[in-house]
Structure formats: structure tokens, C-alpha cells
């Protein structure tokens, strides 16, 4: 009973979280400055190309999050400790958020550049499928008759879904070779990035990772509190 107030160990999130918040906020403002002031406007695509620095980092973080879901799910099934389930769940939720931002910014960027909101190249197809799997992952938990089974089923979906992603990519690539479309544009980039653009991209990626880390840890801690509350309820009856 006396331990109720201290389920969140002070050393664990007590100091790291505020620090992450301050550093993350500083990075975020710097990032906005870089994206809207520092980096030069792209010659062909114009101002809309600045979405690039939101879009690409959020895609990266979205995929990274699903990798965390994958690893945490395996750990949960092997070790059966709740902490791994909380990590998987938090990474799933926050990853879903990032991937949604990535798809929305991608579509807004694509419309003026390509003339369409969406194209079915391998990268976009894989991102969309990953997003759908995320939804299934969260739905399984919501529809499960109890939390424990929801956690186990979600872990299975998280693992199966992750293994599926490269196969989807390969299939979509192969499919595109049968259905050629006349698309050249943002993705013809890579090598042709100006140094300022590259700096901004990497800084932005770092910034979004910090934001992810903060949200991920916050959500994990919330779930820990939630569980402590459940346990307390069970004990009280």
C-alpha cells in the first residue's frame, strides 16, 4: 500500500523526461528555423519541398518504431515481463502517429509535384501496408476479451507484420516493373542534395527521434501507472 505513490521510480523518468522535453523543444525550434529560414528553396519544386524535412524523418521514425514493436514483442513472448509489452504498445501507438504524419505530409507534397496525392511505388506501398498493420496491431488489443490476451495477440501481429514488410516491398517493386508509371520527381534526389539540405534533413531526423523518445517514454510510464492501478484494484477487490 505504501508503495502506491512511487511506482514511477524517481530516477527513471523523473529526471530524464524533463531533460528530454527541454532538449527536444530546443531542437524542435532550431529545426523549424533550419527548415523555414536556413535551408535554400529547392529550384524545381519550390516552397512545398520543405515538407521533405518533415516527411522523410517521420517515415524513418515510423519504421524505427515498428522495429521497436518487433523486438519488444519477441522479448515479451520469450520473457513474459509486462515492461516489454508496455514498450511494444507505446512504440506502436507513437509509431502510428508518426507514420500518419508522414503519409499526410507526403500526400500534400506529392499533389503539387506529381499532380496526384499518391503513387503506388514500392516505398509508398510498403509505408501504407505498414500503417494498415499498425491499425490491426492496435485493433487486436482493443477487441481482445482481456488485456493479457490482447498483449500476446498484438505481439504476434507485431512480429508477423514486421517480417511481412520486406516481402511487401519486394512484391511492390516487382509489381511496378509490370506497371510502369511516368513518375520522376522527389525520389530522383538522394545524391543531389545540397549540403544545407542534407544538414537540415539529418538535424530534423534527430529532432523527431527526440520527440519520439519523449512520447514513447511518457506513454510507457503511463501504462506502468495504469497497471499499478489495476493491481491495486485487484487487491482491494
Amino acid at each position, binding site marked *: 500500500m505504501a508503495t502506491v505513490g512511487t511506482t514511477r521510480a524517481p530516477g527513471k523518468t523523473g529526471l530524464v523526461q524533463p531533460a528530454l522535453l527541454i532538449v527536444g523543444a530546443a531542437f524542435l525550434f532550431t529545426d523549424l528555423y533550419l527548415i523555414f529560414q536556413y535551408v535554400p528553396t529547392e529550384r524545381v519544386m519550390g516552397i512545398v519541398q520543405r515538407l521533405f524535412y518533415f516527411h522523410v524523418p517521420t517515415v524513418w521514425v515510423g519504421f524505427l518504431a515498428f522495429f521497436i514493436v518487433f523486438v519488444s514483442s519477441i522479448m515479451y513472448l520469450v520473457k513474459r515481463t509486462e515492461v516489454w509489452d508496455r514498450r511494444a504498445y507505446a512504440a506502436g501507438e507513437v509509431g502510428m502517429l508518426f507514420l500518419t504524419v508522414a503519409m499526410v505530409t507526403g500526400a500534400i507534397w506529392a499533389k503539387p509535384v506529381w499532380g496526384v496525392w499518391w503513387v503506388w511505388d514500392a516505398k509508398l506501398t510498403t509505408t501504407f501496408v505498414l500503417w494498415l498493420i499498425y491499425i490491426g496491431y492496435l485493433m487486436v488489443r482493443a477487441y481482445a476479451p*482481456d*488485456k493479457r490476451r490482447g498483449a500476446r495477440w498484438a505481439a504476434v501481429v507485431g512480429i508477423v507484420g514486421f517480417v511481412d514488410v520486406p516481402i511487401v516491398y519486394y512484391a511492390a517493386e516487382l509489381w511496378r516493373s509490370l506497371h510502369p508509371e511516368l513518375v520522376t520527381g522527389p525520389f530522383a534526389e538522394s545524391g543531389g542534395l545540397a549540403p544545407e539540405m542534407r544538414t537540415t534533413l539529418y538535424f530534423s531526423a534527430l529532432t523527431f527521434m527526440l520527440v519520439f523518445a519523449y512520447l514513447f517514454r511518457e506513454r510507457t510510464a503511463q501504462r506502468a501507472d495504469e497497471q499499478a492501478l489495476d493491481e491495486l484494484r*485487484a487487491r482491494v*477487490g
Partner: protein
Amino acid sequence: MQETPPAAAAGPAMAIAVSGLSKTFGTTRALIDVDLRVAWGQTLAVLGHNGAGKSTLLRVIASLARPDAGTVVVGGFDRAKDAARLRSIVGYVGHQPLLYDDLTAGENLAFYARLYGVADARARIGQVLEDVGGSAWADRRVRGLSNGMQKRLAIARALLHRPSVLLLDEPETGLDVSGLAMLDRLVRGVSDGGAAVVMTTHGMERGLALADQIVVLAEGRVALAGRSTDVTPADVRAIVTRQSEVAP
């Protein structure tokens, strides 16, 4: 009638050894720190009001449910390490008959005989059907059988692979007077053959008469444990009624 071999004649001293067992469902604590031992050839009756944790206890011993804490060792096989071998020596009768409606009684038993790898399946099926008084409806589909017949068939299914540990969860349900007599006869036969029996029951007097040992559960804890000769119905009733008043 039963040729149950004491599976581990030279093996472990105890048929069932449960210690520190806890199990939670969501916010409900079904079992709390339960300790339990049953020797070979002994019959244990588990009593308690509805929701006291009787069924959960049996399901955990049968390896259908995974405990949150504690150890379950049946016939020397640890539930956590040796689940498959544990399962091969356990017979279980639950609330549902666990039968396929569109198969006949005989086909149901033949299917389970294959799953358990029963060697002399045909003869054994004939034998257990006779034991439960079901030889006459061996070729009838389960869908057309009465509840009592299905219960008898469920008991036959549990005995099919000559289990050395028999778990019965309120086996009286659905049985008529002759069915109850058959059940008592079978339980005695099984335990005379050296097997351990654990049964939950609402029928306190029958439980006390049939069992060697009694455990009374209340709110997931062992409230009373002892030899059936030392426990009176009044002792049990005192716990059960007290708990039903307290229970929400």
C-alpha cells in the same frame, strides 16, 4: 474395472504438488497462494461457493490456464517445463462435454484416442463406453444425445488414455441417479487403481463421503484443508455461507 497403472510407481511420491499458486484475471484474483498435495490413490474434494476459484484451480492443474505465480507438478512433471508429458497423464472433465456434435460417440472417442496415442484404441473405446453405460449409443451422433449421455461420454473421454490423475469439475451436473452411482463407482475404481482424483463439487455430503481429503476455497484462498473424516459438513457450511454473504 479400471486397470489404471500408478503411472509413476517408482517415481514421485506425490501425484499432485501445487505450491504458492496465484492466478489473476484482469482485476479479479481467482487464486491466491494456494498450496495443495494429493498422494497416489487419494481422492481430493474441492469445495467452496461459486467463484471461489475451484474451476480455475482445476484448469491450472490441467495446464489449460497458466499460473501467474507458483509451481504445479503433476506426476513429477513440472507444468512449466514438461507440459506435454503432464497432459498425457491427466484426464479432465469440465463444464462442457468437449465433444463434436456431428460425430458419433464412437468417432469422438476414436479421435481423442488418436490424439493421445492410445495403443489398443478399439478395445479401449469399447471398454470406457461400457464403463459409463454408453455401449448402446456408440453409433449415435452426439447432437442427438441427452445432456446426461453427453456427460457420461465426457467422462469416458477423460478415462480413455488411462490417466493417472483425474480432474473432475462438478461432474454431477446433468447426471441422474444411476449416473451418479456410475460416477461414484468409477471414481472409486480409478483411485483403487492407484490414480489420484481431484473433484470440485457442490454436493458437500457426497464430496465428504467420496473423498479422502477436503479443501475448502474461499475467495481464492485455502480456507480449510483436512482429511474428510475430520471435517464435518457444518465446518464447510460455516465457511461457504460466510463467504457468500461477504461476496459482492
